[in-house]
């Protein structure tokens, strides 16, 4: 019940906000924050009940929904899902609490946020392929309305592009799901069955096509080059908390899906094509970082670094699935790295986008050239930005380093050349973040920003909690690693 509660509470909260008329802004926000925190609390309880030495999937809940089609309300977690879902709930609570311009339509805004939280957690907790698809599509609907209604610039266009692009991918994925479903008898969408049976081995439906459908769908979501073009536009025009969720949570659905579906269910096919995926990942790492370096718009620049960071995750996943047996230690290392990268990127990039939101609220401006010397009027803003930027570029002692270290350590023993090339991505990222910090916070302070207010109470609280999370993961990652390692070991070497 605990997982259903984690999904159901935000959905019920969204319904409450939508159904009761005339919410006051502050009341709606407090209510939504409380519900989001309750959902997070459910996941914390799930974390306490999870035993790393136990079965792969734990806390399983199963209620028949459409037995005639082999579909059921099946939820459950492994260590990876638990880590990603908890991070997501935290990012949601943070984004909901963070100040935002709701344009006097607070109740619908917070209702969509809670709706999005419920369905996003559903994606990570689902153990049924069709249920996964249901939540995956619903997350697009939620994001479409958030960007279109509360975004700025060409927000409706961006929202439409985002929805269409990812929906194309999700339809290809649906066809692939049906392919997987038809290749087990009796037909079932139960992920546990599909993982145990590896149904595409010697199946009539061409495994390569199913794999291609899955990977394109998930690559659009992740996004991997060349399917990334929807991302910068959606990010720039979205309201900042929605950007934080888009980067922090929604992108993870792509990589999480890769891990859960093609990686776990089609091991042979995945191993055969792992080198292609790894190559695309390295291209994403370098291309994403280079594009980010070339941007002059703060939010756009951070958006492009997401492509780079998700590239690390995909590289880790590709390395972990590159072989059917042998080199287990290195592959497990890579997989753990990929998962930690998901968690770290969610927290760090979430913070960075929220900071962007603070910029927008104060100045209505994202062009970096307009800023300079902000360290003087806004020392706290500067401090949190510096911390998040350092974490993002992979400074030791912060979460990004733990992730990237694991990924590259694993990659070196499987694809050494790709690791060497990929390292350059880190260099470029470091350069671009240092340049950003220099441009924004140091140098001459333009006259118009001399009275820029520093962070407010809620901003301090939210950024403080997120920063604490990625510092703790950087210094003492053990609590996270034990949970992830158990599942990663199982996935790399099924016993």
């Amino acid at each position: 019940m605990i997982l259903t509660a984690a999904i159901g509470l935000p959905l019920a909260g969204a319904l409450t906000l939508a159904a009761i008329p005339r919410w006051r802004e502050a009341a709606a926000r407090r209510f939504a924050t409380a519900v989001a925190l309750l959902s997070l609390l459910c996941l914390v309880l799930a974390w306490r009940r999870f035993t790393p030495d136990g079965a792969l999937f734990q806390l399983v809940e199963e209620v028949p929904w459409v037995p005639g089609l082999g579909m059921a309300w099946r939820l459950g977690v492994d260590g990876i899902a638990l880590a990603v879902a908890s991070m997501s709930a935290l990012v949601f609570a943070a984004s909901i609490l963070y100040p935002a311009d709701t344009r006097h339509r607070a109740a619908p805004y917070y209702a969509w946020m809670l709706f999005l939280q419920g369905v996003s957690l559903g994606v990570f907790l689902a153990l049924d392929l069709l249920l996964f698809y249901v939540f995956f599509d619903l997350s697009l609907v939620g994001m479409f309305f958030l960007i279109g209604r509360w975004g700025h610039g060409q927000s409706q266009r961006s929202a439409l592009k985002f929805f269409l692009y990812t929906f194309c991918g999700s339809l290809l994925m649906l066809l692939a799901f049906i392919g997987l479903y038809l290749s087990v008898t009796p037909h079932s969408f139960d992920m546990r069955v599909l993982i145990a049976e590896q149904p595409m081995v010697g199946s009539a439906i061409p495994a390569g096509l199913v794999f291609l459908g899955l990977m394109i769908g998930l690559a659009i979501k992740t996004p991997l080059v060349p399917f990334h073009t929807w991302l910068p536009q959606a990010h720039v025009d979205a309201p900042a908390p929605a950007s934080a969720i888009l980067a922090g949570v929604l992108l993870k659905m792509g990589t999480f899906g890769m891990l859960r579906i093609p990686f776990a269910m089609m091991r042979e096919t995945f191993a055969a094509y792992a080198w292609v995926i790894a190559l695309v990942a390295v291209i994403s790492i370098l291309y994403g970082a280079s594009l980010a370096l070339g941007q002059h718009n703060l939010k756009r620049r951070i958006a492009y670094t997401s492509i780079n960071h998700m590239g690390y995750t995909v590289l880790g996943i590709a390395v972990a699935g590159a072989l059917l047996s042998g080199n287990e230690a290195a592959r497990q290392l890579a997989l753990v790295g990929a998962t930690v990268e998901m968690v770290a990127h969610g927290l760090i990039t979430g913070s960075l986008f929220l900071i962007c939101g603070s910029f927008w609220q104060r100045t209505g401006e994202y062009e970096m050239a307009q800023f300079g010397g902000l360290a003087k009027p806004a020392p706290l803003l500067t401090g949190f930005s510096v911390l998040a930027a350092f974490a993002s570029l992979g400074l030791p002692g912060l979460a990004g380093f733990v992730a990237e270290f694991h990924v590259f350590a694993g990659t070196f023993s499987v694809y050494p050349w790709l690791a060497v090339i990929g390292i350059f991505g880190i260099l470029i990222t470091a350069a671009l973040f240092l340049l950003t910090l220099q441009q924004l916070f140091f140098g001459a302070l333009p006259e118009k920003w001399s009275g820029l207010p520093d962070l407010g109470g809620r901003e301090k609280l939210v950024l403080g909690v997120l920063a604490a999370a990625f510092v703790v993961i950087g210094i003492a990652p053990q609590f996270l690693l034990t949970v992830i390692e158990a599942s990663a070991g199982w996935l790399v070497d099924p016993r």
Partner: protein
Amino acid sequence: MPVGDLLPELCLLLGAVAIVLTSSFLPQQRLGWMALLALLAIACSASAALMQWDTPARLTFSGVWALDGPAIAAKLIMLAAGAVVVALSPGWLATDRRHGEFYALLLFALLGVIMLASASDTMELVVGMLLSSAASYPLAAFHRSFAPALEAGMKYFLVGALTNTLLCIGVVWLFGLTGSTGYPAIAVRLAQGVDELALLTATGCIVVGLSFKLAAFPAHAWMPDVAQASPAPAAAFLTVVPKVGAAIALARFLALLPAPHHPTLLIALLAAATMTLGNLAALWQKDVRRLLGWSAVAQSGFALMAIAAMPTSPDARTSLLLFLATYAIANLAAFAVVIELRGRTALEDFSGLARAAPGPALVLILAMLSLVGIPPLIGFFGKFMLYRSTLQGGLGWLAVIAALNSAVSLFYYLRVAGTIVFGQPDGAVHRLGGASPALVWLSGALLLAGGLAVELLVDALQGVGSFAG
């Protein structure tokens, strides 16, 4: 004569006759009562059809009339849709001088399409086609003084006259080939082998003839005009009900052809052409009803997918019926909203509707998302079953084309949804009232609840069995 087997149809016939007679004597203000009479006839007909549901599949009336799962299921879907349309009509036609006849025409059209779905004889097929066509033309042009409605009716009539003739030619040709009009005898004769080119010609003519009712390529041209300009209840009827009957008729006819002659590729190509054409034409429409018309064309293409997969996929019939049922609910919901908004149709007039009329706006958006196939709305399960049957039938390429088409269709539905939610309201929203708000809410609830409880529908339709004969 086993008259009892025709009870559902007789109810409709008697109801229609009673309406024609009564409405000639009633004063205009009372003509709305005829809606109740029509609903009564439909209710009797539906309960008679329900009683036939669990009986084994068989042919009756000297083998010209099929009583089997697909026919009865289609009958029930069409009757339910017809009832919704009848309930939507009184408010719309309250001031019309010939209000009463409308219901008689609806019942006759309903009777015709039910005959299409149940016909197990080519002559019967022609009669059903002609009856439903003859009753549908005046429905489309019911507002005689409204030029666009006349134009729509005229277009409908011209396309119909041409394709009905083709259907007759096909039927005659087939008779010449096989010496018979009854489906069982035709199947036996075809299995012995006939001239391939001649069979293909006959099949082609019959397929084109039926594609008219289905609003599929190449006889789709009437649909957007009818959807845009006919009285909105008639448009709701004509975009939904004939499709169901024609799809079953087409499936039943194609099941006669022995496997090597089954025109799978032809039907698959028609499906691809229909959905692509409908979607591309809908992309930049500035009129919501016309957009719904083109989307109805596109949805016919989806229905054809299941028909194409019929020989190779065991549950294609279930998929077809489930899809048609889900489509009927979503399209009727959309038209119920249009009717409730007094036929509001220009896209810019929908701007900001989410604030000005939140209920209808919500239902219209749900209906459109259901037509795209966004889960967990009921339309998703219809599309899902179609994909499943198509992949199972080995038509992967068609499934991919359909998926891309779904994505394209999302674009124009979202244009409407975006206008409704993101736009600024402009002026007051005039509502129709009467039964239509209740039907708007009911259909909206069905879209969601039907998706959550889709098991009931799947379960009922999975036992639908094959065609009798």
